[in-house]
């Protein structure tokens, strides 16, 4: 199969995930909660971003055993994260049969200059971006899906909004350019010229664009959809919900399932405020979170990626 055909199949799976919610899960039981709530895929990882943020240290690819357990627990697609530039982790995840690899800034980067050459893999990749140039560089490397970055693990939507608006504004600007201005635009964006041409022709990214980072409520999910996301990732927003006291684990499971269901339905009904109002009523308390503005520049995950 040639690389164009291979890419069509990779983007094809991203197309199938549109309008759905991809949930971070840390155990097979959480994966089952996600599937039961209507998630269209799960992201298998050892620590959700909020915990990585609290505990610190180097965050790496998950234990293959955890990934296999989660693959066995659900019938929906399973994604997993590798570190930026860590091609060996990506090869291992491909060998494990994950359906999508997230080359993610949430983990500690392995390379501060280069991302993985993603065309050579059979498994599709999703990568984060803060602006159009970063998105198009990742697509140039072979990413089959883009997610605009928020500040993961905060429960604060502000960074996701900033980056989604930035991407959409830059796309509109490209659409208004004349032929002879496109090379200068590509140079300024640091993006492959051919993909800039595609963006002008399509008026959107040539691969699906999802939102991630900071989504904690049905309203947050609706907001990102209205700003142009085709689907959302929810990281800490579900499994940080509820009382972590082990004696109340049944109660916590119920709370998490309710929040998960509400966010799934909010994405499907993102443009219907009366339904969003119903979905938001009496929900368990959303994750406490931390204001993204309170995070020192050096600790902002979204800044990772080049």
């Amino acid at each position, binding site marked *: 199969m040639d690389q164009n055909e291979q890419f069509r199949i990779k983007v094809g799976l991203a197309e*199938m995930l*549109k309008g759905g919610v991809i949930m971070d899960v840390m155990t097979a039981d959480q994966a089952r909660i996600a599937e039961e709530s209507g998630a269209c895929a799960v992201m298998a990882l050892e620590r959700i971003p909020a915990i990585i943020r609290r505990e610190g240290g180097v965050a790496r690819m998950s234990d293959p055993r955890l990934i296999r357990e989660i693959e066995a627990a659900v019938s929906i697609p399973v994604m997993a994260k590798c570190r930026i530039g860590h091609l060996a982790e990506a090869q291992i995840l491909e060998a494990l*049969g994950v359906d999508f690899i997230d080359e993610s800034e949430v983990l500690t980067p392995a390379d501060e200059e280069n991302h993985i050459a993603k065309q050579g893999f*059979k498994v599709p990749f999703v990568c984060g971006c803060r602006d159009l140039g970063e998105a198009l560089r990742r697509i140039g490397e072979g990413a089959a899906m883009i997610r605009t970055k928020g500040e993961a693990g905060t429960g604060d939507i502000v960074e996701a909004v900033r980056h989604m608006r930035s991407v959409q504004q830059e796309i509109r600007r490209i659409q208004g350019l004349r032929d002879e201005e496109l090379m200068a635009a590509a140079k300024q964006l640091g993006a492959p010229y051919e993909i800039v041409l595609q963006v002008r022709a399509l008026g959107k990214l040539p691969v699906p664009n999802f939102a991630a980072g900071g989504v904690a409520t049905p309203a947050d999910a609706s907001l990102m959809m209205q700003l142009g996301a085709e689907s959302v990732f929810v990281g800490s927003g579900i499994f940080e919900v509820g009382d972590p006291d082990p004696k109340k684990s049944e109660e916590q499971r119920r709370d998490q399932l309710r929040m998960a269901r509400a966010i799934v339905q909010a994405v499907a009904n993102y443009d219907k405020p009366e339904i969003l109002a119903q979905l938001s009523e009496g929900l368990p308390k959303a994750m406490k979170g931390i204001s993204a503005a309170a995070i020192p520049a050096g600790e902002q995950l979204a800044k990772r990626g080049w």
Partner: protein
Amino acid sequence: MARPRVGVLSLQGDFARHGAALAGLGAEPVRVSRPEQLRDLEAMIVPGGESTTMLRLLEATGLRAPLEAFVRSRPVLGTCAGLVLLAKEAGELPAPTLGLLDVSVERNAYGRQVDSFSCPIQVPALGGPFDAVFIRAPRIRRVGAGVEVMACASDGEPVAVRAGLAAGLAFHPELTPDRRFHRWFLTELAGLALPAERAGAATAQGSGGRA
């Protein structure tokens, strides 16, 4: 000439690509995520996506009963997860399928995403080969009496079936620029008249990204 209004179930999945295919053929795609949106539609497409998610959202939105009534009397095309939803049997799922096509399907039966593939299949109704894209695709394990097999893969396994006004495909005709399957559905199965197609529309839409 009026453009025929064709619904695309838009709860989750690649409804946008089907919409683009329909528009390219001169039909008017209508996104359906609420019961009232089924009014005045000539036909319906149930797209690919996650069948478990779609089944749950059908229940949550109150769309299930009206959709079931619609597809029992009007033309419907299901692709991939859409085939799963139309099938009579599809293994363990959170809610019963619509049961319109008397076939048994097995979800994700080719394996995981690394096992997804594309290959040409012979489709007599289209007069020849068609490039079919299979993504975590279902396999049709049993074909009931009264169900016609429209196409088989090279191993002889059925990958497209029809019965009455319903057709189900294990693959994704909306992901390739070839619009013959959509045109067959609209004109042959649904008996709709299409206005003159926009020049080049059939090839301009969605080549899967980097052509």
